[in-house]
C-alpha cells in the first residue's frame, strides 16, 4: 500500500513537473475572485469564476506571469454585505494580493471600497454601472465595457444600419427605450437618450419595475408612439414578459433590440425561437464572431468546453477571461508587483489596439480607468443561434443582418 502511495505521489510530482513549471509558495500571486456562487446569480457567478480559473491555468502552463504562479481563490458574495465579508476573508485569511470580480455592480461597489481599506487592487472585469469608474477610487479600474458602451452600440446600430435598411433619414427615425428602473436600466436609457438625440432622431424613454406583474400598459404606450426601433434594457423576467406582451398585443416595431441578454435558453424557452428570429441583442462579444475581429475566441470557447464538458453559460464569463488576460499583461509590466500604485501605473501605460484579445478588445484606459477599447457588439437571432451582425467587421464571413421585423 505504502509503495502504491509512494509511486502515486512520485507520478503526480513528475506529471506536475512536466505539465507546468515549478513554482514555490513565495512565487504565487493569489487573486481573490468575488463572484456570486450561491443565490440567484450563482450560475453566472460560477461560470465567471471558471473562466478566471481557465485563464490562470493557461498562464501557469506557459510559465506563469512575471515568473509567478497565478492562483485564483473564490469568494462568494450575493449582496453588498457579503461582498465586504468576502473581501475581509480573502485578504486576511487567504492573503490574496489582488481582488477581482464580479457580475453585479452593487457587489463590485462594496467589494472595491472594502478592498481599498486593505490597500489592495480591485481589478473589475465585468460589472456594468457607469458610476463605478467615476468614483475615482485609486485601486479600481474596469477592463470590460460599461453600460454606456452598450448604449453606444445600440445607438450606432440603430442610426448607422437600421435607419438605412428602413429607408429612413436618421432624423426621421423613432426610437423607444423601455428600461427597468434601477441604476442599470436607467443609466443605459439616459445614455441612449443623449446619443440618439445627438444624431437627430426622436427618442422616448420609459421605465418600469422589473418585478411588475403586468407590462401591457408599457406596450400600449409604446404602441401609441409607433417606434421604428424598440429597445429593451431589462432583466430576464421583465424582458420575457415584455416580449410575450408584444406578441399578445401584436406590437410589431421594425426592429427590436435587447440589451445585455436575450441570447440564452431563458429567453428562447419563454417566447420560442420562431418569435425571436431577427431580434437584435447588444452584448459582450463571445462566440459566432469573425476571427480576425476577435482572434482566438473560437479556440478559447472550445478549450472551455473541453475543460468543463459543457457550454459556457450566459455572455459575461468570456469577458472576464479577457479581463484576467489584461491583468496578466499588467503584472508582466510591473514585474509581479501587485500594489494598486504599480498596477494602475502599468495599466495607464497600456496601449493595445482593438483586436488584441479574443473578445476583440484592445486596451487604453481613460482618466477614470475605464478601458475605452472594449466594445459591445450586436448579435441577431438567425435560426437556432445568435450571430454577430454589427459592426460589419465583427460579423463572421458571409453573415449579414436579416429582416428585423416581428412576425
Amino acid at each position: 500500500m505504502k509503495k502504491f502511495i509512494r509511486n502515486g505521489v512520485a507520478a503526480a510530482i513528475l506529471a506536475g513537473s512536466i505539465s507546468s513549471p515549478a513554482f514555490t509558495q513565495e512565487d504565487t500571486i493569489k487573486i481573490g475572485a468575488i463572484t456570486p456562487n450561491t443565490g440567484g446569480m450563482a450560475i453566472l457567478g460560477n461560470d465567471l469564476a471558471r473562466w478566471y480559473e481557465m485563464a490562470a491555468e493557461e498562464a501557469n502552463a506557459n510559465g506563469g506571469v512575471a515568473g509567478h504562479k497565478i492562483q485564483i481563490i473564490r469568494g462568494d458574495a450575493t449582496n453588498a454585505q457579503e461582498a465586504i465579508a468576502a473581501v475581509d476573508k480573502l485578504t486576511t485569511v487567504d492573503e490574496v494580493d489582488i481582488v477581482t470580480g464580479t457580475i453585479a455592480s452593487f457587489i463590485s461597489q462594496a467589494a472595491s471600497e472594502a478592498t481599498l481599506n486593505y490597500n489592495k487592487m480591485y481589478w473589475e472585469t465585468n460589472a456594468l454601472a457607469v458610476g463605478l469608474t467615476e468614483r475615482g477610487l485609486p485601486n479600481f479600474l474596469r477592463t470590460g465595457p460599461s453600460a454606456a458602451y452598450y448604449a453606444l452600440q445600440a445607438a450606432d446600430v440603430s442610426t448607422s444600419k437600421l435607419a438605412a435598411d428602413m429607408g429612413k433619414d436618421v432624423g426621421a427615425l423613432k426610437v423607444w427605450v423601455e428600461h427597468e428602473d434601477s441604476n442599470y436600466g436607467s443609466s443605459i436609457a439616459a445614455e441612449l437618450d443623449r446619443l440618439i438625440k445627438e444624431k437627430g432622431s426622436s427618442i422616448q424613454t420609459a421605465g418600469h419595475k422589473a418585478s411588475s406583474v403586468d407590462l401591457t400598459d408599457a406596450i400600449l404606450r409604446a404602441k401609441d408612439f409607433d417606434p421604428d426601433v424598440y429597445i429593451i434594457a431589462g432583466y430576464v423576467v421583465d424582458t420575457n414578459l415584455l416580449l410575450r406582451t408584444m406578441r399578445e398585443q401584436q406590437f410589431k416595431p421594425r426592429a427590436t433590440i435587447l440589451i445585455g441578454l436575450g441570447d440564452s435558453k431563458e429567453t428562447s424557452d419563454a417566447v420560442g425561437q420562431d418569435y425571436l428570429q431577427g431580434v437584435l441583442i447588444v452584448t459582450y462579444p463571445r462566440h459566432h464572431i469573425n476571427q480576425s475581429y476577435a482572434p482566438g475566441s473560437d479556440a478559447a470557447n472550445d478549450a472551455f468546453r473541453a475543460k468543463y464538458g459543457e457550454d459556457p453559460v450566459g455572455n459575461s464569463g468570456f469577458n472576464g477571461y479577457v479581463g484576467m488576460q489584461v491583468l496578466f499583461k499588467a503584472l508582466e509590466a510591473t514585474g509581479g508587483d501587485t500594489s494598486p500604485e504599480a498596477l494602475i501605473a502599468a495599466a495607464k501605460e497600456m496601449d493595445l489596439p482593438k483586436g488584441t484579445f479574443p473578445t476583440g478588445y484592445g486596451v487604453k484606459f481613460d482618466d477614470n480607468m475605464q478601458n475605452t477599447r472594449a466594445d459591445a457588439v450586436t448579435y441577431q437571432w438567425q435560426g437556432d443561434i445568435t450571430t454577430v451582425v454589427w459592426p460589419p467587421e465583427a460579423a463572421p464571413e458571409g453573415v449579414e443582418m436579416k429582416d428585423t421585423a416581428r412576425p
Partner: protein
Amino acid sequence: MEQLLNVITLGLLLGGIYALVSVGLNLIFGVIRIINFAQGEFLMLGMYGAYLGYSVLALDPYVTVLIVVPALILLGVVVYWLVMRPLQNEPMMQVFASFGLLLLLQNIVLAITGGLSFSINTPLSQVALSLGPVQFSVSRLIVLVAAALAAAALGVFLARSTVGKAIRAVAQDRRAAQLMGINVQTTYMWTFGIGTGLAGLAGVLLSPIYTLSPHIGGNFVMAAFAVVVLGGLGSVAGAFVGGFIVGLTEAFAGYYIDPELKHAVIFIVFIAVLLVRPSGLFGKVGAEEVGLREQS
C-alpha cells in the same frame, strides 16, 4: 376610445389575476388571522410544480392542477400542524414564522435551480384573441374565468358544506365555536390547507404567463395584501371585487399616468378606502379589531 377599451380589458384581466391570488390569502388572513408572508412562495411552488409536470412528465400545465393543488393542500396542512399550530398563542411569532418559511422556500428553490429562470411555452400560451381593437391572451382569460369559478366554489363551500360552516363559525367566534363542539385546530388546519391549495391553483394557472424565478411570489403578494384589506378580511366576495379594483386602478394609472407610478397609485387608493372604511369594502365592521387580539 380604442385604447380605453384596451385599458379596461387589461384592468379586468389583471383583476382576475389579483383576485385569484387573493382568495386563498384572504381565507387564511380572515379565519386564522395569520398574516401569511409565505403565501407568495406557495404560489411560486405551484408554478414550479406546473413546470415540473410540463418538462418532466410532458403534461399540459393546466392538467397539472390535478397533482399540484392536492400536493399544496397537503403541504399547507403539514406546515400548519408543524409550524403554525405550536405558535397559536403567539400571533406575532406566527407572522415571523411565515416570514422564515418565505425565506426557506425561496432558498430551497434557489439552491435547486441555481438561479436559472424557466418558462412554459405551449401552443395555447401563444394564442392571442382579438375583439375589435382589443387584444388579450387566452392564458389571461383562463385566469379570469378560474378566479370567478374559484371564488364562487369557495363561497358555496363555505356556505353549504359542514367544514365550510365550521370555518365560518370559527372565523366569527373561536370560543363559541369550540363550545358548540367544533374542533378549532382541525378547522384551522383545513383552512390553512385550502388557502395554500388556492395559492397552488393560482401558481399553476399563472405559470404559462410568467418566467419562473424563486422570488416571483413576492411580485404578487404585496398587491394581494392590498386586495385583502381593501375587500375586507375574510370576505370571499371582497377578495374578488378588491382584485378588480386594484387591477383596474393599476391599468389606468399605468397607461394614463406612468407605469413607474402605478403601484404608488394603488396604495393611495388603498389608504383612502381604509380611512373611509377600515373594515374594507365587504368586511364586517369591527372585523379588523378582533384578529390578533382575539387570540391573545
